[in-house]
């Protein structure tokens, strides 16, 4: 029996996600927040291990109360229990403090874990930092971007591609693995499962004081990094605007910018012409 923890985050439904490849449309039916895709793959990896080896899965998230939705989804997929870290004082945490907070919760509520699974990265920040930093907090080995993952006895075997090297790695439990988005395609959750999960009470909500944390050390206050400014980038281009019928636009383009784009294009046209 493998005692597992899956770290998950609710992310805004970015404009391109989820994207229905068949109909070529956005799935706007889904709500504004969703489970970060890689976290879903991590949960799927945990479920697969549970099927093969037996196990127990705790899903953990730190976020606003609304993020409870993804824990319910996790239960519908097959997680056994959930931990929701939610507190105003936790807001605005950078990855350093996020991993610090998650680690304290793990130590209190699931200290005897064998395997922690996280997504390789989130779609909203894509830092890929929380997994490795959580491993450091807990003093366990970490492997990121796993494509394959297998538990055998007290060890895990991982395959991954890292900078063009195909690596096969082994580590002893306990350890932390982050799961790639190509691996462990998440199972389909039937609507009934989701509905059952909404009646579910197997979610433990904890605050900073439940974790014995000083509000000064967490959230925006405890974060080593500070945001100075958020702004829209500006471009300094001549920005000539062309409108009208496509045919006319293209003629116009060649008339006006022949010297500018012509250099390269003409060369290629000549090459094409000869070839």
């Amino acid at each position, binding site marked *: 029996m493998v005692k597992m923890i899956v770290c998950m985050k609710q992310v*805004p439904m970015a*404009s*391109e996600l989820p*994207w229905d*490849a068949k109909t*070529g449309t956005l799935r706007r039916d889904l709500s504004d927040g969703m489970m970060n895709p890689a976290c879903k793959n991590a949960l799927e990896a945990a479920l697969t291990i549970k099927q093969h080896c037996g196990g127990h899965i705790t899903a953990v998230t730190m976020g606003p109360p609304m993020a409870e939705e993804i824990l319910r989804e996790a239960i519908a997929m097959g997680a056994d229990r959930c931990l929701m870290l939610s507190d105003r004082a936790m807001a605005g945490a950078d*990855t*350093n403090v996020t*991993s610090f907070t998650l680690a304290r919760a793990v130590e209190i509520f699931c200290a005897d874990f064998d395997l922690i699974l996280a997504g390789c990265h989130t779609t*909203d920040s*894509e830092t*890929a*930092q929380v997994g490795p*930093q959580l*491993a*450091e*907090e807990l003093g366990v*080995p*970490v*492997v*990121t*971007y796993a494509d394959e993952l297998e538990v055998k006895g007290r060890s895990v075997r991982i395959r991954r591609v*890292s*900078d*063009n*090297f*195909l*690596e096969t*790695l*082994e*580590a002893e439990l306990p350890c932390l693995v982050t799961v790639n988005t190509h691996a462990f395609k998440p199972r389909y959750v039937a609507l009934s499962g989701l509905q059952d999960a909404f009646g579910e009470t197997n979610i433990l909500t904890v605050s900073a004081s439940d974790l014995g944390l000083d509000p000064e050390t967490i959230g925006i206050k405890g*974060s*080593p990094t*500070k*945001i*100075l*400014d*958020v702004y*829209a*980038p500006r471009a300094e*281009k001549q*920005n*000539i*605007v*062309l*409108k009208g019928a*496509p*045919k006319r*636009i*293209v*003629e116009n*383009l060649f008339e006006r*910018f022949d010297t*500018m*784009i012509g250099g*390269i*294009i003409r060369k*290629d*046209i000549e090459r*094409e012409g000869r070839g």
Partner: protein
Amino acid sequence: MVTAKSEIWVFGDYRNYFQNRVTLQLISRATDLARPLNATVCTTVFGCNTDEWVGEYIAHGAQKVYLVEDESLKNYSSDRYVTLMERLARQYRPEIILVGATSFGREFAPRVAKRLGTGLTADCVGLDVDDDGLLVQTAPAFGGNLLTKIVTPHKRPQMATVRPGVFREIPHNYEATGEIVRVPLPKDLPADRIRITGYEHRPPLTQKLEDAAVVVCGGRGMGGKAKFKNLFELARLLGGEVGATRPVVYAQWADEDTLVGQADRHIRPKVLFSFGISGAIQHTAGIIDAGFIIAVNKNPNAPMMKMADVAIVADANQVCLALIKELRKRLRG
């Protein structure tokens, strides 16, 4: 106490060409940052038989190399490298540590930052020094069209990762000299907790897109897989390559290796055509070095249109078809 000259460190990531390139690019940026700080540009090199890399880094601007060489370091292992970096940083106290956002760097840097109790900004697209000597890290924010400036005011070192291609390396100068600080392998360095049981080099993705003088990029505004195909014909006629945005790759209108942007590829064509692309920062981060930009979009206010030399307000596919027609005519004529 008179403090020694401050140092900017670049982690020497050398396992393959791209890793080595991003190291050189960061040495170059560190050289710019070092001027206002009056700091020394240093590289750390861990491994076995690393003369080649030490030489490369010095030739590209490193003034000092911290070198830990040992037979036992020949496996490129983040577990041991993290501990070494932590120890070195505690001993020599660099102001700044820069790490390439390679697969290795992404596993390595967060762990080092955590051990040193400091901040780390991922995927910076800009690094500068402000009047107070703080490292200002510019990174994309909120998954959209915004940039954010981040500092680490109190903790040291200040740490950032940067994707390959964001900065340009300094041309090599094999006359350059640098100091080499040989650090013996600590006797108590813990054993690797990760065992490597298989290791296989895979051929890197082609560099075609990065090297192309003309790139035709398409986004969701192309409207479908069949229409997107037209861009390949246009690229063929122009002697260029096709690039794509993430939604296009997700929808499988184009292969994954066409993706252009922060996450994968930085391109620097002389001429860039951009069809039906909104211009989210994650995409445009990959095209900042493009020369002449021609954008086609139905929406004249799309950010992509603002950063174009020529902004064409029209249907992307129709303009693509008209271009194909015009080029064919010119080729025949």
